[in-house]
């Protein structure tokens, strides 16, 4: 339902999105995961027709975003990064405005339905300026869904709200799965892990990993992670030393020690302990760690500088 091919976006001479390809099918919730500045918002703005791609094509429900912009816009529900509002409108007035503008037939019934769905019914006469962040986020969702679009694009829907409301928004997103293609961005991994069927990890405008949360975790299955706490030298010296050990692919300072990712599926712990002691350091602690999706994310997005 969303088909993206070779998407490139340049701002002046800065390339924010560097040729990405992906698809989202109906009934699927896909998480676009990446650190700040990865190009998530830029990608979404091109999908919604807010700005044209520099290169590449986007098809939504079979319509080209550039050629058939109006058809695409009718079929997309979009919640931008910080839900933009008209502060002096009422909750009901705000949703009604977007419903009318998007040509909803039975405006009153639809507005009532989405306000009910997002538990805003008792606040419908309240001015938008007085809504808390969580309520405003729900208003953003109501606005995005009022015209029953088959494709839903949500830019960081859980940013800046408390954990209880994160759960509410997450449940709301999850309830959309039926018949919708949902693309939802975040830089918080646990969130994406819980809501999405599939995760696309982007960094510096490129896709660096893709798959279900389980497959992504398994990408590290061939590898192994060891957590060590070492004494007898400065952190920088220790970490430089660890990096030089053969079969070590990645070293990250974590808590008081280092998380070492190794290439082989042999247990590297005996070798490690021997080499570390030979170098004159002391091992205070050493244990094997299960690779989590978070490690995949950090490994993929931390190291690859362009």
């Amino acid at each position, binding site marked *: 339902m969303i088909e993206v091919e070779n998407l490139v976006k340049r701002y002046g001479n800065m390339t924010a999105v560097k040729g990405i390809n992906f698809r989202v099918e109906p009934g699927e919730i896909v998480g676009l995961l990446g650190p700040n500045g990865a190009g998530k918002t830029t990608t979404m*703005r091109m999908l919604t*027709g807010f*700005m*044209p791609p520099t290169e590449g094509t986007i098809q939504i429900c079979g319509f080209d975003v550039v050629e058939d912009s109006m058809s695409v816009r009718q079929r*997309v529900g979009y919640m931008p990064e910080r839900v*933009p509002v*008209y502060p002096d409108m009422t909750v009901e007035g705000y949703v009604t*405005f977007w419903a009318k*503008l*998007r040509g909803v037939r039975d405006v009153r019934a639809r507005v009532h339905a989405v306000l009910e769905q997002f538990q805003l019914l008792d606040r419908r006469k309240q001015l938008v300026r007085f809504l808390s962040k969580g309520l405003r986020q729900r208003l953003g969702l109501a606005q995005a869904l009022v015209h029953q679009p088959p494709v839903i694009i949500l830019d960081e829907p859980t940013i800046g709200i408390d954990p209880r409301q994160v759960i509410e928004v997450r449940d709301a997103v999850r309830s959309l799965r039926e018949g919708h293609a949902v693309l939802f961005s975040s830089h918080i991994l646990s969130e994406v892990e819980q809501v999405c069927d599939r995760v696309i990890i982007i960094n510096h405008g490129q896709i660096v990993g893709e798959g279900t949360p389980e497959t992504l975790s398994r990408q590290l299955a061939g590898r192994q992670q060891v957590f060590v706490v070492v004494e007898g030298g400065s952190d920088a010296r220790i970490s430089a030393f660890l990096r030089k050990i053969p079969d070590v692919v990645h070293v990250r300072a974590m808590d008081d020690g280092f998380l070492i990712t190794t290439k082989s599926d042999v247990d590297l712990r005996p070798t490690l302990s021997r080499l570390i002691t030979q170098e004159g350091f002391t091992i205070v602690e050493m244990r094997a760690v299960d690779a989590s999706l978070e490690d995949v994310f950090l490994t993929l997005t931390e190291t690859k500088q362009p």
Partner: protein
Amino acid sequence: MTGTPIIFRRELAAYFTSPVAYLIAAAFLVFTAITFNQDLAFAITVRPVDPALIPRVLTQLLIFIAPLLTMRLLAEENREGTLELLLTAPVSDASIVIGKYLAAWVYYTFLLALTLVYQIILVNIAFPDMSHTLGAYIGIWLYGGATLAVGLVFSALTESQVLAAFLGMIALLILYFADRIGQIVANIDLGLIIFQLTLQGHFIPTFAQGVIRAEDIVYYAGLIVVMLFVSIRLVESRRWR
């Protein structure tokens, strides 16, 4: 253009709920009322009443009022980010700009209609030339439309309402007083030509005398069309930034 009436209605409602718009309306009424009162005091002793008094005063008042009325229209959408939702809604950029513009013009028409009170007072105490008044009101209504269109351009240009209003006022001042340049170069012909291009050049000698000329209507209508076109282009260019 399906979006125009919807945008128009929201925008007009925003005028009637905005404290700033009420302040502008108050300033508008106080200023016209004082002028009217003074003229009336003169009229008793010195000369007959001027049937085009209010429209004549408005030509200069609008230089300041029009940009204040339009500054919010696009600058605020831009700053708040609602423009992102508008530009991804299934409506054309033109229908958004035109809907907003019409709301400003209708609100101005409402303010102008309030000044008809003065004319009612006048009819009851004097014998003004009503056709003269009517001509001048038609003129100032068009004139107002043109100044609002100029103001809109600057609201499309910047995210800052203050800057939009300020630039709008400067642009209108130039459009109004440009003929002074003709006076400086001391060339009467050049002065006359420039006068023909200014806002006052199509009002003071004609509409203010109650004379309705096609070329004056074309001038203001043309100004509106050009300014709306520029505004639409500026909104479109937002997509490329």
